[in-house]
C-alpha cells in the first residue's frame, strides 16, 4: 500500500491555512436577515404573557417568532425523546432558553427589537441538582424528572458479594463540561415554497434533515442540509440543536435567516452530563474481581437531547474492560433546570472510567497489589465477551496498558518518581477502559470514476477537523489504484451525497471508509467486465495497476475503457457502497468495534498550593490500520488534552439554575501552557479492524482515561485519593490538608 498508511497532505489544509475555507458564519445568502434570540433570565418559570407588538413594528424587523407562531405544527423535537420545543411554550426550563427570536435587517436592529419584547413570568421552584430532581414531591421539569433509565445484569450480584473477601463502596462525581468548539453553533436557514435549505455547522446532516422534514411536514427530498467546514464539534453539533429555531424564524420572516450563537449561548445549548456514580465492588484477596453493582446518575439538564444514549452508553462502559462473574448496572438520566446535556466525545465514557478506574486503583492499594498487575489479572482478552449480548472484545487492552506503563515509566506501585524540589511530589498513574464505538453501521458512499480516469468520492461525513476528506480520498485512491491527487471528495450536502447516519463515535473511517472502499470495488468490477471484453480474456487473468487494467504484457487505462463504453470522451462509472448490519464481514452485532481507552500519566503535585502539573502523558490506541498516521496521532492528542481540561479545571458552575461561568475567562480551557513536557501517542496496528484495510476508529479513547490516570498519579505522589473532579488546586490542597491532619491519608507507598 502506497497511499494508505502515509501521512499525506490533507486537501482541506490549504483552504484553512490561507483563510479561504468557508464556515457557516462566513457565508452570505442573498436576501439574508440576521437573527437574535431573547433568552429566559429564569431557570424555571411559567410564561404568563409575551408582547412582541412593539418589536414587530420596529423598522427593519422582518419577523418575530414566539410560541404563538407555531400553532399550526407539533413543535417538539429531539434525537429520540421529542421533549424540546422549537421555542419556549408556556414555560421555560433553563436560564438561556429561547423565548422569542427576531429576524432583522442587521444585528443592531434585531438587538434593539429584543429590548421591545415584554415577557411576564411566574417563577417556579428550581430543580438545580440531581438531588433536587430525586426529592419526593419535588417540582418536575417535565412530567417527571426521570428522563431515561437503563438496567442490565448477569450472575447474581448479591451472591457474588457473599463470595467476596473484600467489598469496596465509593461514590465518584464528574462535573458538567463545555465542549467549546471555537465556532459556536451557527446556522443559516431558508424556508420557502420549495422546501428548506440550511447551511449548518452540524455533525449529523442527515439526522438534521430527517428531523426538519418531520417537524415541518416535508418529504425528505425537500429538505437540504449543507455543511461546509465545521469549526470543531466534539459532539456539540451532533443530532439537532438550533436548526428548527432558525427554520421557524425564516418561515416567519419569509427570507433566509442567519442565527449565530455566542459562546455563552452555545454553552447553555449543550454540555457534557455531570455524573454521580456509586460502585460497590467485591473482590477476592488475590485480586480476582467477583461482583460489581453500579448505580449511575447523569444530569441531562432541561432536555433529553441525546441523554438517553449517554445514559445507556455510560452504563455499558462503567464495568470497564474486565470480566465480571456477577454484575448489576442501573443508570438514570435526570432532568434538572440547567442547560441540556448531550453527546460529548466518548459519550458516557469519561464519567464511567473516572469512577471505575479510580476504584480499581483504590482496590489495588487496599489489597497491596500492583495496580498494573491487578488490571492485567482481570482484563478481558480479545475474543472474550465482556458484555453479554454484545460483540466480543476486539481490542488488546493488556498490550495497550503495558505499552502505556512502559511509555510513562511505570516501575511498580512502590516506585514513585523522585523530585529534587522540596514542595512537590511526583507520581505515576494508569487507567484503561473501553468504549462501545461506531454507533450503528448505517453508511453509504458513491464513487464516480470520470472519463479522464480521475474520481470523486461522495460521502456525508462532515469535515469537522478530523481529516475525513483526506482519509476518504486515500481509501478511494488506494482501492482504485490511481494517484491521490486524482481523487476529490464531495461531502456533507444531503441533496447531493448519499446517506450516512452521523459523524461521531469514532465511526467515519471505519464505516464510511468501508462504504467508499466498497464503492471503489464496485467500479473495479465494472472495469473488469469492460476489460474482459476488450482483451477477450477471463477476469481472473486481469489485474489493476496505475489507473489501468493489465492483461499479461498489455494494459488499458480506465479512461480508455470508459471512452470505449460511452463511445467518446465522455461518461463515467459509478460505484455504490452500502454498509448495513447485513454487510459481509464483522459488522454483525454491536458495537461496531470496542475502542481502547488507555492512558498513563506522570504528575507533579505542589503540596503548598495543590497545583498539579502533568509532566508526561502517554495514550495508546488500537487503530487496526492508520490510514494517515500523523492525523490519527492528532486525534488522540486532542482527546487527551480535552481530558486534561476536565481533569484539572473545566467545570460549568450552576447555582440555583444560573450559569455562573458562561465565558472563556471564567470557564478556562487548556492552553499551550498545559502541554505536558512528554506527550506521546502510541498507535497499535494489527490490521484487524472491521474498516477498510483493517482500520478501526480512534480519537475518543484518551479522553475517557486521562482523569483517572491523573488522579491515580496524584495518589501515588501524595497518598491522597480524590473522588471529585476537577482536581483544582483548591480541591487538591484541601484534600492534602485533610489527608495529613484528618487521619484519612493512606500512605502504604515507599519512596522509590
Amino acid at each position: 500500500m502506497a497511499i494508505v498508511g502515509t501521512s499525506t497532505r490533507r486537501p482541506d489544509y490549504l483552504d484553512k491555512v490561507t483563510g479561504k475555507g468557508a464556515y457557516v458564519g462566513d457565508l452570505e445568502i442573498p436576501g439574508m436577515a440576521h437573527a437574535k434570540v431573547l433568552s429566559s433570565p429564569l431557570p424555571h418559570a411559567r410564561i404568563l404573557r409575551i408582547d412582541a407588538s412593539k418589536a414587530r413594528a420596529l423598522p427593519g424587523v422582518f419577523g418575530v417568532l414566539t410560541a404563538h407562531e407555531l400553532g399550526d405544527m407539533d413543535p417538539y423535537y429531539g434525537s429520540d425523546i421529542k421533549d424540546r420545543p422549537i421555542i419556549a411554550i408556556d414555560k421555560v426550563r433553563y436560564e438561556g432558553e429561547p423565548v422569542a427570536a427576531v429576524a432583522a435587517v442587521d444585528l443592531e436592529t434585531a438587538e434593539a427589537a429584543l429590548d421591545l419584547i415584554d415577557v411576564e413570568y411566574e417563577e417556579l421552584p428550581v430543580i438545580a441538582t440531581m438531588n433536587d430532581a430525586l426529592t419526593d414531591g419535588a417540582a418536575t421539569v417535565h412530567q417527571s424528572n426521570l428522563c431515561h433509565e437503563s438496567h442490565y445484569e448477569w450472575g447474581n450480584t448479591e451472591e457474588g458479594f457473599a463470595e467476596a473477601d473484600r467489598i469496596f463502596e465509593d461514590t465518584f462525581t464528574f462535573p458538567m463540561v463545555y465542549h467549546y468548539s471555537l465556532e459556536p453553533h451557527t446556522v443559516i436557514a431558508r424556508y420557502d415554497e420549495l422546501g428548506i435549505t440550511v447551511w449548518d455547522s452540524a455533525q449529523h446532516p442527515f439526522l438534521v434533515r430527517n428531523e426538519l422534514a418531520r417537524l415541518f411536514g416535508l418529504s425528505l427530498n425537500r429538505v437540504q442540509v449543507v455543511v461546509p467546514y465545521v469549526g470543531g464539534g466534539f459532539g456539540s453539533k451532533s443530532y439537532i440543536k438550533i436548526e428548527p429555531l432558525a427554520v421557524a424564524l425564516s418561515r416567519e420572516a419569509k427570507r433566509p435567516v442567519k442565527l449565530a450563537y455566542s459562546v455563552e449561548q452555545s454553552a447553555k445549548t449543550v454540555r457534557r452530563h455531570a455524573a454521580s456514580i456509586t460502585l460497590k465492588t467485591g473482590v477476592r484477596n488475590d485480586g480476582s474481581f467477583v461482583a460489581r453493582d453500579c448505580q449511575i446518575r447523569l444530569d441531562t439538564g432541561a432536555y433529553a437531547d441525546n441523554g438517553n444514549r449517554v445514559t445507556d452508553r455510560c452504563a455499558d462502559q462503567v464495568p470497564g474492560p474486565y470480566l465480571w462473574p456477577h454484575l448489576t448496572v442501573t443508570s438514570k438520566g435526570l432532568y434538572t433546570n440547567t442547560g441540556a446535556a448531550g453527546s460529548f466525545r466518548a459519550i458516557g465514557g469519561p464519567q464511567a472510567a473516572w469512577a471505575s478506574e479510580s476504584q480499581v486503583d483504590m482496590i489495588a492499594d487496599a489489597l497491596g497489589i500492583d495496580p498494573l498487575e491487578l488490571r492485567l489479572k482481570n482484563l478481558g482478552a480479545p475474543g472474550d465477551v465482556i458484555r453479554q449480548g454484545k460483540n466480543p472484545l476486539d481490542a488488546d487492552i493488556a498490550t495497550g496498558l503495558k505499552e502505556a506503563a512502559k511509555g510513562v515509566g511505570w516501575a511498580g506501585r512502590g516506585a514513585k518518581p523522585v523530585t529534587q524540589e522540596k514542595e512537590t511530589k511526583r507520581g505515576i498513574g494508569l487507567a484503561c477502559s473501553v468504549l462501545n464505538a461506531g454507533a450503528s453501521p448505517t453508511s453509504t458512499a458513491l464513487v464516480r470514476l470520470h472519463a479522464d480516469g480521475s474520481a470523486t468520492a461522495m460521502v456525508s461525513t462532515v469535515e469537522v477537523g478530523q481529516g475525513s476528506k483526506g482519509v476518504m480520498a486515500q481509501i478511494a485512491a488506494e482501492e482504485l489504484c490511481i494517484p491521490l491527487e486524482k481523487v476529490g471528495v464531495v461531502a456533507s450536502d444531503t441533496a447531493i451525497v448519499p446517506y450516512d447516519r452521523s459523524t461521531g463515535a469514532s465511526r467515519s473511517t471505519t464505516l464510511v471508509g468501508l462504504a467508499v472502499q466498497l464503492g471503489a470495488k464496485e467500479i473495479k468490477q465494472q472495469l473488469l467486465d469492460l476489460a474482459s471484453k476488450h482483451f477477450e480474456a477471463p477476469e481472473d487473468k486481469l489485474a489493476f495497476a496505475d489507473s489501468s487494467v493489465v492483461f499479461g504484457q498489455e494494459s488499458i487505462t480506465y479512461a480508455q475503457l470508459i471512452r470505449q463504453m460511452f463511445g467518446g470522451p465522455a461518461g463515467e462509472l459509478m460505484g455504490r457502497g452500502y454498509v448495513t448490519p447485513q454487510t459481509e464481514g464483522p459488522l454483525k452485532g454491536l458495537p461496531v468495534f470496542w475502542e481502547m481507552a488507555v492512558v498513563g500519566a506522570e504528575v507533579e503535585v505542589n503540596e503548598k498550593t495543590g497545583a498539579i502539573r502533568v509532566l508526561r502523558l502517554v495514550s495508546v490506541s488500537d487503530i487496526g490500520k492508520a490510514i494517515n498516521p500523523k492525523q490519527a496521532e492528532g486525534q488522540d492528542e486532542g482527546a487527551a488534552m480535552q481530558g486534561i481540561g476536565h481533569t484539572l479545571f473545566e467545570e460549568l458552575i450552576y447555582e440555583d439554575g444560573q450559569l455562573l461561568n458562561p465565558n472563556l475567562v471564567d470557564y478556562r480551557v487548556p492552553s499551550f501552557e498545559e502541554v505536558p513536557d512528554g506527550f506521546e501517542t502510541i498507535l497499535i496496528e494489527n490490521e484487524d479492524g472491521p474498516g477498510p484495510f483493517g482500520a478501526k476508529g480512534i480519537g475518543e479513547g484518551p479522553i475517557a482515561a486521562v482523569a483517572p490516570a491523573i488522579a491515580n498519579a496524584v495518589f501515588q505522589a501524595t497518598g491522597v485519593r480524590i473522588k471529585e473532579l476537577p482536581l483544582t488546586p483548591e480541591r487538591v490542597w484541601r484534600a492534602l490538608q485533610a489527608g495529613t491532619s484528618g487521619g484519612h491519608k493512606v500512605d502504604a507507598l515507599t519512596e522509590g
Partner: protein
Amino acid sequence: MSEDHRLQISFVVNGRPVDTEIEPHLLLLDLLRDKLALKGAKRSCDMQVCGACTVLVDGNPVSSCTYLAFEARGTDVTTIEGLADGEKLHPLMEAFIDNAGLQCGFCTPGMILAAKSLLDLNPRPSVEEVKEYMRGNLCRCTGYKKILESIEDAAQRMQG
C-alpha cells in the same frame, strides 16, 4: 447612528490602501469581515481570550474582536489573506500543513499570525518561549503538540 458621527479612516490592509467611512463603535473584526470581505479572522470568544480573531497591526498581534476599527487608522494591518506571497505560501503555512498543525482550522488564521509575530521578534524561540507567547491562542482540536512542532519547523525554514 446618524451620518454626522461617521469617521473617515485610512489604513493599509495586506499591502493595499483602504479609505472608508465607519461608525465610531465599529470593531476591527467586523470591518474586516463584513466590509472588506476578509473572512479569515474568526469570531469566537468575543473577549480577547481565544485568539481566533487575531490580526497583525503594525506587526503586533491584536484581538480584532475587541479592537476599535478607528484605532487602526494610519496603521498597516495584516490578515491571514495577506500572508502568502501570491501563490507561494508563507513558511508558517507550509509548516502547519506538513506537521498537521491544525484540524478544524477555525483557530488557524489567528494561530499562524500570532506565530508570525513571535518569529519576527524571536526567530529561534525555545519550546517554553513558544508556549508562553502563544498562550493567548486557543485550539480545542490538536492538543497543541503538532502546533508546537509546526512553529519549530517554520522557524527552521525561515532561517534556512
